[in-house]
C-alpha cells in the first residue's frame, strides 16, 4: 500500500481542481475496494456499482478528508457504508448469488465451488468478524493497517481475527459435513 503522504498529495491536487489526479487514487485502491465490495454484497455486479459509487462519493466529499489520517481508512469507511446502504436497499426477495469467476486453474469447477462455499460462509459471519477477515485476507492489510482502518487497537485486531477465523472454520466445517 502506498504511503499516506503520497495519497495526500494526490488528494490536494484533486481539491486544487486537477480532477485527473484522482485517477491515480482510483487505480491504486480499486482492486481492494472491489474485493471488499464483492465479499460484502455477494456478487460482482453489485460490487461494481458499490465501488463506482464509493469513488464518486469520495470525490464529492474530498474536502472532508483529514490529512492526519490515511486515505485508505477514509475511503474504506465510505465503501463499507455504500455496501451496507446497498444491502439495505436491495429488495428482500433478491437472492445473494456469487458470480465470482474462477480463473484458469487445473480444476475450475472445484475452485469455483470452494469460492462459493467461502463466500456463503463469510456472509454468515457478523459484520465485525467479516470485516477483519476481508481486510486481512482479501485486502492484504497488516494488523496495524487493519486497526487503523477500523479504529481499533492492534491487539484487538489480533484477538478479533483469531475469533473470526475460528467461527469461519466452524461454518465451513458444518457446510462440508452437510454436503458429505
Amino acid at each position, binding site marked *: 500500500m502506498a504511503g*499516506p*503522504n503520497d495519497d*495526500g*498529495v494526490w*488528494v*490536494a491536487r*484533486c*481539491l*486544487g*481542481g486537477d*480532477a*485527473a489526479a*484522482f485517477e491515480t487514487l*482510483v*487505480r491504486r485502491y*480499486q*482492486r481492494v475496494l*472491489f*474485493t471488499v465490495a*464483492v465479499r460484502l454484497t455477494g456478487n*460482482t455486479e453489485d*460490487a*461494481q456499482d458499490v*465501488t*463506482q459509487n464509493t*469513488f*464518486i462519493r469520495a*470525490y*464529492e466529499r*474530498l*474536502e472532508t*478528508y483529514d*490529512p*492526519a*489520517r*490515511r486515505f485508505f*481508512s477514509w475511503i474504506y469507511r465510505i465503501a463499507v457504508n455504500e455496501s451496507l446502504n446497498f444491502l439495505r436497499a436491495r429488495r428482500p426477495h433478491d437472492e445473494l448469488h456469487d458470480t*465470482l*469467476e474462477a*480463473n484458469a486453474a487445473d480444476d475450475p469447477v472445484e*475452485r469455483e465451488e*470452494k*469460492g462459493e462455499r*467461502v463466500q456463503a460462509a463469510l456472509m454468515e459471519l457478523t459484520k465485525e468478524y467479516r470485516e477483519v*477477515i476481508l481486510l486481512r*485476507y*482479501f485486502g492484504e492489510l497488516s494488523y*496495524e493497517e487493519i*486497526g*487503523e482502518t477500523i*479504529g*481499533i487497537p*492492534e491487539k*484487538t485486531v489480533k484477538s478479533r481475527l483469531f475469533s473470526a*477465523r*475460528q467461527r469461519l*472454520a*466452524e461454518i*465451513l*466445517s458444518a457446510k462440508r459435513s452437510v454436503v458429505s
Partner: protein
Amino acid sequence: MSEHELDALDRTLQEVDRPEPPAGLTETVMKEVTEIEAGLSRWRRWRRAAHSRRITNFLSQEGVVWFRTKEGRQAAVQGGAIVRTKILWGVTGVAAVALVSIFVFGYPPIGNSGTEGSIGAAQRYQGATLSMKDVKVPDSDVQQFIQSDTFDRLLKDSTARNALIAMFKDQALAEALSNPAFVALVAQPGMAEQLADPAIQALFANSEARLALAKPTVVAFFGKTGVAQLLGDKNVAAFLGRPQTQEALLAPASQKAFHNGNLEQALAEPALAGLVSNPLFKSMIENDAMMEALAEPAFVALFANSAVQHALADPAIVAFMTNPLMANVMGNAQVSLALGAPAIAAALNQPAVKAGLANHSLMSALETPAMRMALGSPANRGAISAGISAGMSR
C-alpha cells in the same frame, strides 16, 4: 478448533480467487468525476482549494510524525520540535487568557481573605477597564473552559493551535482575547473548528478587521449568549467563510462602518443580539440569493451610511428587524436588494418611516409573493425608492 484446522482455513482463504475489478471501472469513475468537477459551484471550488492548501501545508512541514492514538487509529502531526513548540505556545496562550482575566479583570474572584487590598496596581487596572459592565460571564466559565473538551481539542488540534498562536501574536487582538467575554465565546461548542477555518484566519489577518474586533463593544456583543451560540453554529461558520461575506466584511465601506460609533451603539442594543440569534436569521444567511445580495455594493454602502447606522441603533427599527416575520422577509433576495437602494437607506432614518415600520400590516405586505415579485424588478425598485424619497421630502 485446532491449529491444524485454522491453518487449513488460512490456505483455503489464500486460494480463493481475488476478483479483478471490471474493465472500464476507472474510466467510468473518471468520467463521473470530470462531470462533478465541472459542476462545482464557485463556493465549493474555493472551499476545496482552501482545503487543498491546508493539506499541502500540512504535508510540506518538515517531519510529519505518524503516531497511534489510544483507539489504535493512526494519526499524524507536524513533527518533533515543531509540535512541542506549538503545544508550548498553545498552553502559554491560553494560560495568558486565564491570567490576564484573573489579574487584570479580577475575574474570576480568587477568594476573599482580605489580601486583595495589598495589590494596588491591579486595582488601578480594574478601574480603567469598564467592559465588565457589559459582560456577564458566570464565575466558573474560565475554569470550565480550561477543563472542557473544547480546550483539550484546541491543544490537540494542530490547525486550531496555529490559529490561536497567530491571534496571540497580535497585540491588539491578544488584549481583546483576554476579555472574559471572548473566553466564554471560545468555550462555545463548534468554536474550535471555526478558529481553525482559513477564512476566519484570513479575517484575523486583516489589520482593520483586527482593530474592529478588538473594540470592547464588539467583543461584548459577540460574548452575548445568543450571539456566541450563533457563532458556534457550523452554518454560521460557513457563512463567515463564504467569499462573498469576506468580501463584504473587508470592503472599505464596511471597515469605515466598524470605526463608526453609531454601529457600536447599535451593537450594544440588546434587541440586536436577539435578532441575530433568531433561527430565522440563520436561515436567512444560509440563503444563496441573500449572499449575492450582501455582496452588492449597494448593500455594503447601506451599512456604511451614517443615517442607516443611526437607524439601526433606534429601538423602533430594532423592534422591526427582530420581528420573526421581518427576518423571514429579509431572507428574500429581492427584498434585501430593494432595502439596499440608497433612497430607501436614507428613508429608513425618517421618523415617519420608523413609525410605518412598526406597523404590522407593512411586514405582512412585504411577505406576500406578489410584493416579493414586484420588488424583484429593478424598475419597480427604482420607482419605490423614488416614491419614498418624494414622500420623505414632503
